[in-house]
């Protein structure tokens, strides 16, 4: 059949079909084995052929009524788009970027983190004072799971035993307790971050509540005269863990601030903008919680001396602070 006998749209298709088939073949390979598997020629052609397919699609939409062709081109262009605009980061690159991007994000939200920390300290002070006024507040603040039977009824010896991990503890109980306490603070961190969207109120309440528990717990031990021992027991992992809660809370406040004070953006845009930093805060908090869990699971059971416990706890705290204060600076400055 001669060329002129064909419809315009059919001729259009005939002239380009070979290119589309080639693009399809490249896509097939890149979808199955990843774009790294493409050779130089294929990778170069992918970009060119994708742009050609875009043009074909927009022409076909104008001149052709061939549904089969249109659907094919839509799908082909969509697939090519996905292949061309695929994320190009390796996992190592993502990790490296996080490590250098998190500290600046934290420095930018220092005020919010401080607010979360102060809320917790305020909660702790109130919890302590209330406990001193009337010990029955202890039962109100400290949930059964965390206290693990440690409460007003426990003798000082019992309290001490749980601080230094006495011999009658079985491994199973220790693991369960570690998991329990860990998951409590993880939950607080997670929710005070995520619920921050509701103008920061839940974050405020959760931080306050966490402080209250700590205060009452500390009050009980200080009253019995074993405050120093408790400080060691808490510090070894608590410095990291509570700092993580404060950072997560700071992220929550950041989100709440975006909703409350969107500045000149719409609330949705403000939320998206602030979430860039807030997510880094959440991830930093998650990293710290994992480290805290590690310390809690191994170091606390092994190290029974209060001074060493304090040294380890505040030492790691200092390391975190150094990372946040100095991390990612070198990369940020020449960029500006």
């Amino acid at each position: 059949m001669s060329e002129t006998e064909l419809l315009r749209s059919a001729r259009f298709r005939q002239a380009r079909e070979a290119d589309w088939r080639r693009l399809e073949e490249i896509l097939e390979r890149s979808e199955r084995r990843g774009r790294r598997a493409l050779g130089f020629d294929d990778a170069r052609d992918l970009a060119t052929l994708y742009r050609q397919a875009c043009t074909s699609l927009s022409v076909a939409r104008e001149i052709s009524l061939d549904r089969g062709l249109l659907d094919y081109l839509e799908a082909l262009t969509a697939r090519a788009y996905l292949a061309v605009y695929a994320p190009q980061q390796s996992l190592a690159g993502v990790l490296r970027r996080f490590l250098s991007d998190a500290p600046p994000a934290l420095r930018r939200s220092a005020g919010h983190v401080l607010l979360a920390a102060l809320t917790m300290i305020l909660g702790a002070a109130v919890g302590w004072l209330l406990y001193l006024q009337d010990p029955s507040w202890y039962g109100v603040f400290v949930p059964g799971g965390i206290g693990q039977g440690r409460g007003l009824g426990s003798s000082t010896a019992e309290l001490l035993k749980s601080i230094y991990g006495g011999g009658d503890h079985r491994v199973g109980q220790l693991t369960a307790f570690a998991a329990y306490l860990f998951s409590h603070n993880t939950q607080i961190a997670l929710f005070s971050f995520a619920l921050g969207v509701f103008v920061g109120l839940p974050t405020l309440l959760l931080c306050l509540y966490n402080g209250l528990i700590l205060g009452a717990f500390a009050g009980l031990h200080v009253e019995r005269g074993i405050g120093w021992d408790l400080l060691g027991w808490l510090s070894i992992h608590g410095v990291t863990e509570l700092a993580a809660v404060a950072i997560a809370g700071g992220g929550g406040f950041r989100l709440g601030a975006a909703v409350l004070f969107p500045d000149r953006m719409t609330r949705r845009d403000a939320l998206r903008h602030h979430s860039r930093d807030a997510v880094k805060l959440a991830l930093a908090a998650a990293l710290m919680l994992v480290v805290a869990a590690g310390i809690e699971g191994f170091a606390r059971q092994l190290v029974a001396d209060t001074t060493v416990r304090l040294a380890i706890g505040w030492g790691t705290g200092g390391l975190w602070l150094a990372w946040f204060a100095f991390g990612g600076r070198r990369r940020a400055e020449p960029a500006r």
Partner: protein
Amino acid sequence: MTAAAGDRRARRRLERERTARKRGLALELLPPEGVPIRFGVAGLGARIGAQLTDLMLCTAAVIAVLVLLGLTVGGTATTAVGALLFFAIRTPYYIAAELLWNGQTLGKRMLRLRVISADGRGLTTHAVVVRNLMKEVEVFVPGTYLILGAADGPIESLVVLAWVAVLVAIPRFNARRQRIGDMIANTVVIVQPQAVLMPDLTAARAPTRERFVFDATQLDHYGRYELQTLEQVLQSETRGATGTRDQRRANLVAISRAIRTKIDYRETVADDDTVAFLRAFYAAQRAYLEQRRLFGESREDKFHRG
């Protein structure tokens, strides 16, 4: 009178169909190339299926780790450690998979789904992290909380249950089927496009075209919608897709009769020639409509004049 009423009814049905197709959850992106690309938004059933597949994989991983650690005895300790491990395996798995496999986890891969960024740019690390962290907050952590029975009382359980139910239901009520996490990360889950190029129906052998000749008035009746419907019927005939041979044949004969009556085609067409006639009519009609379109008159359907 009745013909007009029938016409009106047919038109209404057509409009309903069209809005339904439009609501058939298409997402139009504008990539930097400036040509809008359409994607089909994934249905909730497929997404839940993908999630279940992924969760099963993660559960298998958790069980494997627990067995390796020797923590096979039941009890609260194992459950708590298991829940923690589940969290520690699940979240990085989702994030790493969606980053490395361009928006697909293994479950999504099996169900041919993909996460894309709704702004027409590539999927960023940030978006992937946000949508998966929010998934934890929306569903998984409250779900774990419920399953472990950690809630203090029935009221607390109900609150958590309501939270999960509301957040799972949210995608049902927006056109892009976005979770809260999708909204914040500005991502959409789409169906992986499949490209199959059907042969062009007008590229048929010449004799069939010369045998049936149509004049301009006969081609004035139908529009794009009817043309493409006819195309679909003919394509499925060449593929031999649905129904038995006789059913398809009877269907085609009925269609060709309806067309001949409508366009007032005088010559008789033998039943054996039905396919040839329909192909010839399709080619002539498409040539005519594409011609009109080039001159700026696009006919959407047979009601184009009204």
